[in-house]
């Protein structure tokens, strides 16, 4: 006897997914990163809407808002404004722009950026691998959680900057100490978000997998990790923000290259336009890296987006 598909096809109502309400633990140091949890997905959806031409008005407003700020800065700097905030030593946007173009053809400028990116890559890469591994262990095993959690609870509230003296004392090279500080900054948000995601695994899905013959390893791979992924990705994005925050702190205080060193040495050498260039480059690179993390992980979260779209 054949199966009648007809009447069912018509009833394509939508069941809201319960995965949309995931809270996320945010690292204390993560003041720079405000996007939280699966709001990220919402933000992504919003962004894709904003790309529609129908929203060009809003884009104009946003650009205009920035232009106004630059103009105020220019007027204040040119007129040496001194209303509590002192602008005598602040270079105006034209000077900064000229200097930026000059820097673009200087090799050392790229060397600074390259050094920072290298530190981020090493530290963040380590934090991702170790953070997710620790998080999964803690989320799956009470014993592992009991061993690891005390360390996290004690170390997490210590800002990366506070680690600098000890890192310099303990690490063999300056490079290692900066990488270590950056690594620490990225580690905690990644661990905690992973734990959170893993602990949220719906019991019914684990049961379903078991009754379909899945081993523990298969359950980890097919159920626990994909289920935790939205939370892990949120942790990765926050971790990237904190990594930059920590890197800069490390580079300002020690180091010979790096965009943080570039910014701080500009201050000590009285090359003020370079301060602002350094700041903008830091902001730009930080945003770029966070964007890369989100975009890189987006294909893995396609199922969630589909649910939100329908």
């Amino acid at each position, binding site marked *: 006897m054949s199966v009648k598909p007809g009447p*069912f*096809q018509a009833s394509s109502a939508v069941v809201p*997914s319960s995965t949309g309400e995931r809270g996320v633990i945010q690292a204390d140091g993560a003041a720079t990163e405000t996007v939280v949890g699966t709001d990220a997905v919402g933000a992504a959806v919003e962004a894709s809407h904003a790309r529609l031409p129908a929203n060009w008005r809003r884009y104009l407003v946003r650009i205009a808002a920035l232009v106004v700020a630059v103009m105020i800065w220019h007027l204040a700097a040119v007129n040496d404004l001194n209303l509590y905030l002192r602008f005598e030593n602040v270079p105006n946007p034209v000077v900064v722009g000229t200097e930026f173009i000059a820097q673009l053809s200087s090799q050392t400028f790229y060397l600074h950026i390259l050094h920072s990116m290298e530190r981020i890559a090493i530290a963040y890469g380590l934090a991702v691998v170790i953070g997710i591994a620790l998080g999964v262990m803690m989320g799956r095993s009470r014993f592992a959680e009991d061993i690891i959690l005390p360390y996290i609870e004690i170390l997490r509230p210590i800002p990366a900057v506070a680690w600098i003296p000890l890192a310099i004392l303990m690490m063999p090279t300056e490079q290692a100490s900066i990488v270590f500080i950056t690594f620490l900054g990225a580690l905690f948000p990644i661990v905690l978000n992973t734990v959170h995601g893993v602990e949220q695994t719906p019991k019914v899905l684990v049961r*379903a997998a078991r*009754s*379909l013959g*899945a081993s523990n390893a298969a359950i980890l791979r*097919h159920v626990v990790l*994909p289920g935790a992924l939205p939370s892990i990705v949120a942790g990765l994005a926050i971790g990237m923000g904190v990594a930059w925050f920590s890197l800069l702190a490390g580079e300002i205080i020690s180091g010979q290259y790096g965009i943080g060193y570039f910014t701080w040495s500009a201050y000590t050498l009285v090359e003020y336009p370079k301060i602002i260039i350094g700041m903008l480059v830091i902001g730009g690179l930080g945003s770029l890296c966070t964007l890369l993390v989100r975009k890189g992980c987006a294909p893995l979260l396609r199922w969630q987006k589909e649910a939100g779209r*329908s």
Partner: protein
Amino acid sequence: MTTAATTHHSAVLEHRDRFRPRQAAGKGHVSVRNVDIVFDTHHGPHTAVQGAQLEIQPGEFVCLLGPSGCGKSTLMNVVAGFVKPRHGELLVDGQPVAGPGPDRGMVFQQHSLFPWKTVKDNVAFGPLMAGVGPREAESVSRTFLSLVGLSGYADAYPSTLSGGMQQRVGIARALANYPSVLLMDEPFGALDAQTRTMMQENLLEIWSEFRNTVLFVTHDIDEAIFLSDRIVVMSASPGRIIADIRVKLERPRQAELLTSPAFMALKRECLALIREQTLHAFEQQNRKH
């Protein structure tokens, strides 16, 4: 009608013979022997099921019927291997149940599909876990999706499907493993009445191709009569089996049966028996105290 049936049937059998040849007909004997299920709560031990005795023959469609909280789902979870009984023994085809396994497929009430896998990959999961290659698993998956009439949704994610469609994927996923026993825990409980009736009809049609043992938990007496060969009635606190009713309605059954005099007569009979047995159970309970 027959052509489509033949296609399904041969495809289904072909896959089965290739990756689960030992799952031959005649399997699926479930034997529940004197099972007590006790949970330790903050207020002390709570007896969810007491002295359950049940023999299910291979190929029987049995409904566990009872009010909510009577332990019918708990008893099913013991058969599934998710819960261990405090006392008693549980055998499937003569083997004691040690834990969940692919020989006992489970269809849950709702939200049990892997949301990050497409419909097709959900159904292919069991075959993959059975060690079938990805290509074969996908082919099995497509066969079973066409069996439940969802071929067009192979690449959709579950959350984009209606509740009824999701349950059909759940049924396809459980069946794709060729379980000798199919466990269904109020699978249509969350659906609207219209969809539910259709799903019941649909289930019987699909089952007619498998004829494996089905244990189906429900609190809906119409559903129990319509679907099953046997209704095992449970009463609450503590959960006990109080009646075992044979449903002698001819198959194949269609929705029209629900309003037929024969159905009504049987329902009346069942209700009377359930009432009588419930009272009897209460009396026994009172005598003990």
